[in-house]
């Protein structure tokens, strides 16, 4: 089982939309996926029409296997389950490490309810906190959506610096260009510059901007379900493929 965090220390970069579409794309390709909605503002669960569970506000939540497994909801799509939002995140790192440990009670409990996921995708809140630090430690990869602008380049740089300062493995970071507009000169120049500077820290894929992605809130569904041939959908599919190769 791999833990993938979808994280950005900058808002408005399409983080939640990316998490939703990547979760859907991975599930479509046959991976068993659990999408954990950790971002109270993003509410990736909203896009899957899953109602937030009141039960989840309890702090004991992550230490209690039964409460955890009973909070998971099946999405309308095969291979894709959702852990809805609204929770406090104390002990989340303990929880994550238990989830990875094949001998832990949590892992066994997950197996017993047929939730032995291939990928656990975390939609993280957009700040650097104890939670995100813990997530950085436990995750196998950290997906960072980057809009190719000067400001985004700076926040990406800040994230790498944070990893450096705190002795975190930088190679976990997998940036990808999001909401790319090919017609914008700034976008193509920034992409070229960043690729040169950050090399392997960036995935090859660049997900183009699409107004269909913005309509996800209306459809309350991943973009691939209502705009199958959209360029962004193809971008996310490629991203899933590349991500699996890198894991």
């Amino acid at each position, binding site marked *: 089982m791999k833990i993938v965090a979808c994280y950005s220390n900058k808002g408005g970069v399409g983080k939640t939309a990316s998490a939703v579409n990547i979760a859907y794309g991975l599930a479509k390709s046959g991976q068993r996926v659990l999408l954990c909605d950790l971002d109270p503002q993003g509410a990736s669960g909203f896009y*899957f*029409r*899953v*109602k937030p569970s009141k039960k989840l506000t309890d702090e004991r939540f992550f230490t209690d296997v039964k409460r955890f497994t*009973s*909070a*998971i*909801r*099946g*999405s*309308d799509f095969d291979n894709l*389950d959702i852990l809805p939002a609204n929770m406090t995140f104390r002990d989340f790192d303990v929880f994550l490490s238990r989830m990875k440990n094949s001998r832990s009670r949590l892992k066994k409990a997950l197996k017993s309810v*047929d*939730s032995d996921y291939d990928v656990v995708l975390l939609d993280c809140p957009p700040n650097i906190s104890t939670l995100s630090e813990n997530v950085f430690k436990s995750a196998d990869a950290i997906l960072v959506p980057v809009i190719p602008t000067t400001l985004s380049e700076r926040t990406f740089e800040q994230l790498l610096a944070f990893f450096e300062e705190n002795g975190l493995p930088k190679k976990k970071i997998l940036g990808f260009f999001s909401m790319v507009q090919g017609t914008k000169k700034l976008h193509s120049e920034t992409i070229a510059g960043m690729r040169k500077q950050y090399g392997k820290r960036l995935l090859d894929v660049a997900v183009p901007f699409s107004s269909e992605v913005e309509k996800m809130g209306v459809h*309350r569904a991943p973009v691939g379900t209502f705009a199958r041939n959209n360029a962004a959908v193809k971008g996310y599919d490629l991203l899933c493929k590349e991500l699996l190769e890198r894991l």
Partner: protein
Amino acid sequence: MSEMLTFASGGDLRTAFGGVDLGKLSFSLEEGDATVPFALLDTFDAQIAAAGLLLVQTGDGLHLLGGGAALRQDCAEPDFIANMPVGPVTKMLAGIVSPLRTLMTVAEGSLARQGLRVLDDYQKTHLRGTLWVLDAGKGRVVSLPALTALRGYDKSLSKVTAKLGAKADGRKLGSMLEASALLRGEDPALIGKTRIVMTPDEKAFKAANDIIRAQLVAARRQEDGIIADIDSEFLHEYRVALRRVRSVISLFKGVYDDKQTADLKARFGAIMARTGRLRDLDVYLIERDRYLALVPARFRPGIGKLFDMFAAQRDVEHAKLTAYLDGKAYEKEVAKLEKLFDKTRHLSKGPEAGRHALDFAKALIWKRYRKVCKIARAIDDTTPDEQVHELRIECKKLRYLMEFFAPLFGDNEVKSLIKALKKLQDNLGNFNDYSVQQAALQEQADALAGSAEPDTVEIATGIGGLVTVLHNKQLEERSRVTASFAAFDSEDTQARFRALFKPEGEAKK
């Protein structure tokens, strides 16, 4: 994963969905595929439906509906389960269907399948699955929603079950047995076990006639299966039904007058006699593998040839019985008997005919029970076999009486007493079977003695080996009889027999 919801509803459920109030939940029926032909497969006595399942064959496979999950495997001709291709469906059925029973097409018609979902007010799916609408024509329609809850939505499953259960087009949701009976166009009471209604103060004469009439129906239902030679259970059930008829005639003493009793005994006996040899041969052939395993290897070729002989004889006997059952004489005789018990006014009553059924039943069962105990308590390891045989016969009579009158005493109470008795009967039955088989094999060997056939010696040697093994088995069973009876004769069982069956006013013994 989550439990599956499957239940049968008489009629087309699609029209009922609109009227079901699920609160924030709602049904969503997807566009259906084109209608396809289906065949409902089951044993003649509906063993699959009795287990709460329906086996439906369509062009795209064999579907087992109604369990924890819908199972499917590739299409296959109905047969004995052991002869069908291995798959998830046959694997499940192997634990349900008797190895002696073959599957057959019991109903046919057209099937409409539609995707069915239960959604909430966000249009989020909680339950999904398929609605099966099976139409066997002439208004015989059964709907089967097979819904599975998505992870975390089990509550919705129980909610929908409750709501649909209450509504379902005004009709109560039925069991799979009822659904199966509806599709088959049969009375659900008939495809399972024969059941009759009996009241405590009805006359013994009526009770006897009702039982016999029901058993005649049960016997006649088997005729086609015997003739078509579908499996050996048709003949077995036919004989069980006729044996029950004869038991009523002989055990319900005084209900018919002596002449009538003798006449009925003779007439049913004559029919029964036609079937004996074929049943014996069926039993041998069923046991073929077990017998082969019982004897040392050197006897097996001879035993194999003996069974080939039996198989050939069986074909001859089957042809004879078929000719008889198909014949005019049989049809005429059975029609006469049926009429006799339908009208009943030509039946000559005996002195007990007017007794109340409950009163009569208690007297018969109590007397028979005490007789069983008396014989059994006198048996020890040195008692001659004849007495063990007598005990077996008395137990059988007691069992029949308890079964006949079970509706008067509460089925469950009687059932648990029968269960206790059955353990003893199994022991006695095995003892008897081994003894009868030895005698029959010996007879076969004697018949072979003068034969010039080249295999004679080999077969006779095989029989010799088998008889020795059977003799040892018989001794084993014999040595258990005392203990079996002691287990049956517990104080608790005694007390329950007394409480249920002891006639009032009879002195304490």
